[in-house]
């Protein structure tokens, strides 16, 4: 953005100097750890459960290493200046998730549950598909600004994805939340993909409208109130989230989309009033829907008194689940240092032990220490995402990066908070850790886009063109 007629020494960009190191070797070194740690964890589970190093150790380690290696080589070739931490972090989380899923596969108690015993190989396949999508993003998305062209198509795409689970015959109601669709033998959660597509739409839309939203406003009680017609989009998004909440009874996705929109709106307009509006509207929406939607109500009740919910479930009262209380017990039983891999009993959570509730397995077996480390890995991904947003040179890139990382942070908070009993449970899963193809594939794409933006941001500015007039826009500074 800061092209100048002065000599190159006066460059005032937010990124490092020209010729910044690509940091690809750092990434490679970190990737070695990101592959080795899950391999050790895998061996650990096998030794704890069966007293032997698992037979699949080599192929598993090789598989994960190969996927990480392919990812790394593609980044090295197509995005050499990309952030060096994101790929290793995602690989580590994905690898640890595979270990935990494999560990739950070994549980006798979970053998009667759908896909019991085979979840880990499936997840490895999903991971491969995720890396494939990641590679595709790296190769075909030469510049993230291309996505700007598809702003309104993205909106339609997001709406389409969000409405899919409501299509009769396609949608699938799993334990009250209608956020899946069934295609063949695959269950897909379109919401996970909608998250990314929606971020593209918001970024494109806000980049265009941000001045109107920011400047054309009246001051009222210290707040800048937007004009009525500028309120339109936020109202539409709000209504869509409420509709998701009502028809798909999915508090998490609704909160996630609305939160992402408010974050991006705030960044685009720099107006605090949007935050206030957003919080008020989401509060009104959530409370309003919760007061008449029995499924949401039950989630709230289970959150307020998980023990009562447990007792109801044990007494055989339909529609109640003991998961919330079982998860709390899992965390508590893990204590400070945990039981060690394979030695906990998180399988008592039964349904969704390896997806929505996978964090409880980490909490029990790795303890407070391990879970805090895990949460900090997520925090690091978010931090790298925000840093990418800060470093990005174009508003679209900034908005897209902050939207994706903000949504990522919200998702981690909503899921981890739900499983830990901090907020009511929602139907979302921990990115990368949890079993589920949609989540893994979509989040690898998300990492791909972030890497692409960070590559663009950190890439040395191209040499100044011989003829300044060749540049489309020229900003002349005094």
């Amino acid at each position, binding site marked *: 953005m800061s092209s100048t007629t002065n000599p190159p020494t006066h460059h005032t960009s937010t990124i490092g100097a020209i010729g910044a190191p690509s940091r690809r070797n750092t990434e490679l070194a970190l990737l070695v750890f990101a592959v080795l740690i899950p391999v050790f964890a895998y061996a650990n589970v096998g030794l704890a459960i069966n007293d032997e190093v698992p037979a699949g150790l080599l192929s598993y380690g090789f598989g994960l290493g190969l996927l990480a290696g392919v990812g790394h080589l593609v980044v090295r070739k197509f995005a050499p200046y990309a952030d060096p931490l994101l790929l290793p972090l995602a690989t580590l989380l994905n690898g640890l998730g595979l270990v935990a899923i494999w560990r739950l596969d070994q549980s006798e108690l979970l053998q009667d549950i759908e896909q019991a015993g085979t979840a880990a190989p499936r997840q490895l396949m999903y991971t491969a598909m995720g890396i494939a999508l990641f590679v595709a993003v790296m190769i075909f998305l030469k510049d993230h600004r291309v996505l700007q062209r598809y702003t309104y198509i993205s909106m339609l795409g997001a709406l389409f994805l969000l409405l899919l689970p409501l299509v009769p015959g396609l949608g699938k109601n799993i334990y009250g939340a209608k956020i899946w669709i069934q295609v063949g033998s695959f269950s897909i959660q379109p919401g996970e993909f909608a998250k990314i597509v929606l971020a593209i739409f918001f970024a494109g839309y806000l980049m265009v409208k941000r001045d109107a939203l920011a400047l054309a406003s009246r001051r009222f009680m210290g707040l800048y109130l937007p004009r009525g017609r500028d309120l339109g989009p936020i109202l539409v998004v709000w209504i869509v989230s409420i509709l998701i909440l009502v028809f798909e009874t999915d508090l998490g996705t609704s909160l996630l989309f609305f939160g992402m929109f408010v974050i991006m709106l705030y960044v685009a307009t*720099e107006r605090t009033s949007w935050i206030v509006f957003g919080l008020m509207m989401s509060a009104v929406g959530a409370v309003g829907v919760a007061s008449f939607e029995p499924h949401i109500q039950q989630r709230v009740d289970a959150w307020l008194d998980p023990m009562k919910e447990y007792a109801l479930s044990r007494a055989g009262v339909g529609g109640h689940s003991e998961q919330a209380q079982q998860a709390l017990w899992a965390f508590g039983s893990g204590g400070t240092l945990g039981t060690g891999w394979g030695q906990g009993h998180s399988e008592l959570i039964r349904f969704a032990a390896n997806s929505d509730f996978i964090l409880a397995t980490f909490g029990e077996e790795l303890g407070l220490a391990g879970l*805090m480390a895990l949460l900090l890995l997520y925090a690091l991904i978010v931090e790298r995402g925000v840093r990418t947003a800060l470093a990005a040179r174009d508003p679209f890139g900034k908005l897209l990066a902050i939207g994706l990382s903000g949504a990522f942070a919200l998702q981690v908070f909503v899921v981890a908070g739900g499983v830990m009993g901090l907020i009511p449970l929602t139907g979302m899963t921990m990115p990368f850790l949890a079993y589920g193809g949609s989540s893994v594939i979509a989040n690898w794409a998300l990492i791909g886009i972030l890497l692409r933006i960070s590559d663009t941001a950190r890439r040395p500015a191209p040499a100044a063109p011989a003829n300044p007039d060749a540049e489309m826009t020229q900003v002349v500074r005094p």
Partner: protein
Amino acid sequence: MNKPLRRIAIFCGLLVLTLLIRDNWLQYVQADELKEDEHNRRVAIERYASPRGDIIVDGKAITSHATTEGDFKYKRTYKDGAMWAPVTGYVSQAFGATQLESIDDGILTGNDDRLFFRNTLDMITGKKREGGNVVTTLNSAAQKAAYDGLKKQGAKGAVVAIEPSTGKILSMASYPSYDPTSIAGSNEAAGEAWNKLQKKNNPDDPMLNRALREVYPPGSTFKVVTAAAALEHGKYDSADEKTDSPLPWTMPGTTTELKNEGNIPCEDATLREALRVSCNTVFGKLGYDLGNAQMLETAKKFGFTEEQFVPVRSSASVFSDGMNDSQVALSSIGQYNTAATPLQMAMVTSAIANNGTLMKPYMVDELQAPNLDTIEKTDPEEMSKPLSADNAQILQSMMETVVEDGTGTNAQIDGVKVGGKTGTAQHGENNSKNPYAWFISYAKADDGSSPVAVAVVIEDDNAVRDDISGGGLAAPIAKNVMEAVIDSKK
């Protein structure tokens, strides 16, 4: 655009911080509470994760363990489970634990606080946690004699034998019984076995520990308590003094005559004679003469009206207060409200045999750590002194007459002095149901000390009424139990 970006970064940081705080709250502050929550299945998984310690009789374990399917690794098994069930109780993966298995659960699982130091050491050295043992006071020969005797009768009943000088319980049998191994697991078979044992499905109520938890009208065996009260309160000083006992005797305040069983010489009979032939009139009038308060005082000294903890709880035996004259008279011959557990009558006998001193009955001699170190040892403890040594010896000579030359001749043992008392307690409206057959007795060594006191009760719905008498049904069992104890001491 970077200022709001930084603020969003702070916001994301706060989200993560909130999660970290919540995690610390869950896994540090609340961890122990959640970990030890009784509904947390991990508590049970841990409990059955290692073999349970054993319950020991005569140096041999009467319990063992077996592995099971599912997340509970070990279950309890019992050797001669039905015979020992009144002693051990049960421990079941599905149905919890009772009696000794429940009371000493901490030792048996190895979770007891007294094992904490040892457990910590084991954890450091990587040894698996083990359970300690419970060493009982029981005598397996006596227990077998008692259980086999009851089984042979095929009727409901119970036996309790005590070592009078210490209060050690030597035998505690109840019939019909159940095998606690059958309900130890958590599978379907255990559930079915459990349902079959429930009182609603099984009128015999095999899980009832009749030795401790059932109270029976003690009938004529209670006359020894009345005799003790008469001697203690100075009503008579000798067994051979003529009593002031008219025949027939009409109970005061009523026009009803108190009947004796048959035409027996009860008019002004001596205490010895009255006990020998079991005169209702003599002891009924004696109780009336002493009055409710004095009778109750002596009964209480023998342990009536209180629950006993041996350490398993026994029901409280009954002797009422605030009765009218005829009720006191009936109560003094073990009728009306008077009711006693077999343990209670064994305690009465043992106090008399121990020259008037009642020792607190107990059945756990020692608690052992997994390496057999003693953690806790039970010392014999005096509970009360219901009668003086002199009076006890008078009563002994009376009870010995009963066995030598009275209703209790079936309990005679060659070369051993035995004192006893029969009882045939009536119950049901207008005595319509079959009576209970009682026999209480003790054996006496040459030096005057007593190795064993025993109480036997049998309820027989099928026997002809006249056939039931303590001497006929219960005395042979008491004899076998006493012989078993004497033989095992040789």
